[in-house]
């Protein structure tokens, strides 16, 4: 353990902790934009700066090791001044339109501007980028006029998905997140998993599928398992007025042991079928070449009778069961159990074997 003093209070933290980790462990909040515990550290946004006695420079607490005897101030006059300047510098290049922004109410930049009272920037003398918002892909809206250059998306793309579709291009004030040769995501190695959307702290990366359907504070999050494949990722259905309006994910290992928040394009963006008018909501039975709606009992009775008949007429091995990766492992287990124990055949296979 190391013991240090933060804002006049003695605190302890495990050896090897950063100052930020030590603070948070002890209930002291420090603002962060680029820090993400699941990604390799950047130490670049400089929001988490703290003052440490005897150090001539401010330290970025997210990357500075906590040391025994350190005397740290997280909200001193100088630190607050520096944070305000950093926020104002970002504000000077930011396209504020919170009123229509998908992230309103769930945006770190908005929160920190509020916390530090940044109404407007002293550094707005022009020079704001006007980037086109025109990536035609159906899933991810990319609006770099709201980007705070935290590079969390770049690191998520590399560290979680390993797609390496995006990186920083150009230097200095011209630096920007881009695919190779600054093209569309579809022409890059992007797999549209949306991990970048998950980690973006502001409204620069948002879901096109959810656009306009509800803000974070308006939806109820229902934890469930993705039904698309046997991986069984945990996700949260965002429900507003009894309708699914989006999917987010929870990165806590406790909630999301299989995927820790990571999803694929199907889980994150492929949920609009739920309220589709084409969707089947009751079983259908075909009679005289025409489908008619039926109840579950009726349909299951029909299947049971027919299977029974086939088994008696032609023997169990005249039947085979083929299951899909779209159902869960447990369901696949039940299907093979049913095939062997009820139908009485070993003719069972699975699409993942193809």
């Amino acid at each position: 353990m190391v013991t240090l003093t933060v804002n006049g209070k003695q605190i302890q933290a495990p050896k090897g902790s950063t100052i930020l980790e030590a603070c948070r462990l002890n209930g002291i909040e420090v603002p962060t934009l680029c820090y993400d515990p699941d990604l390799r550290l950047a130490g670049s946004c400089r929001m988490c700066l703290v003052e440490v006695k005897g150090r001539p420079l401010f330290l970025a607490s997210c990357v500075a090791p906590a040391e025994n005897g350190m005397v740290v101030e997280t909200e001193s006059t100088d630190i607050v001044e520096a944070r305000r300047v950093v926020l104002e510098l970002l504000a000077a290049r930011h396209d504020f339109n919170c009123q229509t922004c998908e992230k309103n109410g769930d945006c770190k930049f908005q929160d920190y501007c509020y916390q530090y009272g940044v109404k407007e920037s002293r550094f707005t003398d022009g020079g704001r980028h006007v980037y086109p918002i025109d990536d035609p892909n159906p899933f991810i809206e990319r609006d770099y006029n709201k980007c705070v250059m935290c590079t969390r998306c770049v690191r998520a793309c590399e560290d979680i998905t390993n797609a390496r579709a995006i990186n920083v291009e150009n230097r200095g004030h011209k630096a920007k997140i881009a695919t190779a040769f600054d093209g569309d995501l579809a022409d890059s190695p992007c797999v549209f998993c949306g991990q970048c959307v998950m980690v973006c702290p502001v409204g620069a990366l948002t879901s096109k599928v959810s656009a306009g359907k509800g803000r974070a504070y308006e939806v109820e999050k229902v934890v469930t398992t993705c039904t698309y494949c046997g991986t069984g990722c945990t996700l949260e259905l965002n429900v507003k007025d009894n309708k699914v309006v989006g999917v987010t994910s929870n990165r806590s290992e406790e909630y999301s042991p299989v995927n820790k928040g990571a999803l694929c394009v199907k889980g994150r963006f492929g949920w609009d079928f739920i309220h589709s008018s084409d969707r089947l909501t009751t079983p259908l039975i075909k009679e005289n070449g025409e489908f008619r709606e039926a109840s579950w009992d009726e349909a299951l009775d029909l299947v049971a009778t027919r299977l029974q008949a086939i088994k008696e007429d032609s023997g169990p091995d005249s039947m085979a069961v083929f299951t899909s990766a779209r159902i869960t492992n447990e369901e696949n287990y039940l299907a093979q159990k049913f095939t062997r124990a009820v139908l009485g055949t070993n003719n069972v296979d699975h699409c993942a074997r193809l």
Partner: protein
Amino acid sequence: MGKEMRIVLRNADKIDPNSIDDYIKAGGYRALEKALGMERKALIEEVKKANLRGRGGAGFNAGMKWSFVPPAEVTYVVCNLDEGEPGTYKDRTIVQKDPHTLLEGMAICGHAINSQKGYIYCRGEYPYVVEHLNRAIDQARRKGVLGNFDIEVRMGGGAYVCGEETALIESIEGHRGEPRFKPPFPGVAGLWAEPTVVNNVETFANLPEILNRGSEWFKAIGAASYPGTKVLTLTGDVVNRVAIEVPTDTTIRQVIYEFGGGIRNGKKFKAVQIGGTSGGFIPESLLDTPIDFDSMRGIGATLGTGAVLVMDETRDIVDIVTRIAKFFEHESCGKCNPCREGTFRNFEIMTKINRGMAAVQDVEKMSLLCKVMQKACLCGLGQAAPGPIVTTLQHFRHEYERKLLA
């Protein structure tokens, strides 16, 4: 009258830089032999005692830096020949005139930290220096003088920030040239995450003579806290635009008037900027300061790389600082917020002042921005970029005021 003293340039113009035999005849590679016969610990101790402080700008005790390297199977020696600082051409001069003194110095460091591999990161605008170095390395390999230590030259792509040691390492690794946060320092986790010593050309080039003549000899030269000599490169409105090597207790006035021959065309002195683009501007009243690291820091200036840019009475300070601000706006890597946005805003405000379109509030807001950048930026580029603005506001404020709107 001040006198030059040549340690790193001891062979300059005396031997054929293309001939390793010439270098050996002049006593070359004897220091390495001596070093190889020493215990690593004793060798590091000797360099530490000499108090040879980094000549690349930060002034850190070289022996101390080496002593932080933990025992490891793979370690690297990296020579910083990025020399991106405008007005600086000392490293090129050293290498062009005596490449083997650098190679020998690197091999000595190699023995001290138990490394078999050295890299020289050469400024992209110096392709002919790369050729020259490769020739020298080839000769040294064939003669077998480097023992089991090998050296490879890598070329930069023209980014100033790649002179910063961790950006340099990223660049050698093939990544975007962006600084890393520290700690971990390169000595612990540097090139490919292995312990790495990064030193400047001039630092390495001092080592052979320190080994030959001993730390006591070296320690007694120049200023006590920053002993030895410093190679300075004179540019601007000075009569002699040359590279000189002088003891570190030489004063700025001696540099300009005795070695530099004074101001060109009989004009009067206005200011001198030392240490490169981020160096502070020094007025007449501070010219009797010795050039050593700590004395310079004491007057709010830097020794930096030892570039000496002299400006005569006709020069427009605000215009010069505006150009400097443009340099930093262009060279910021863009990784951290205060530098990416701050260098841009500084240039914006300086341009406004220079065009006579700014008010005193603009100067105030720039001063605040500078103050924050100096403490908040991730690397030395952003931390030092405000230097020229801050020091000229201090010493030449009237030149700003003349251009402000009423």
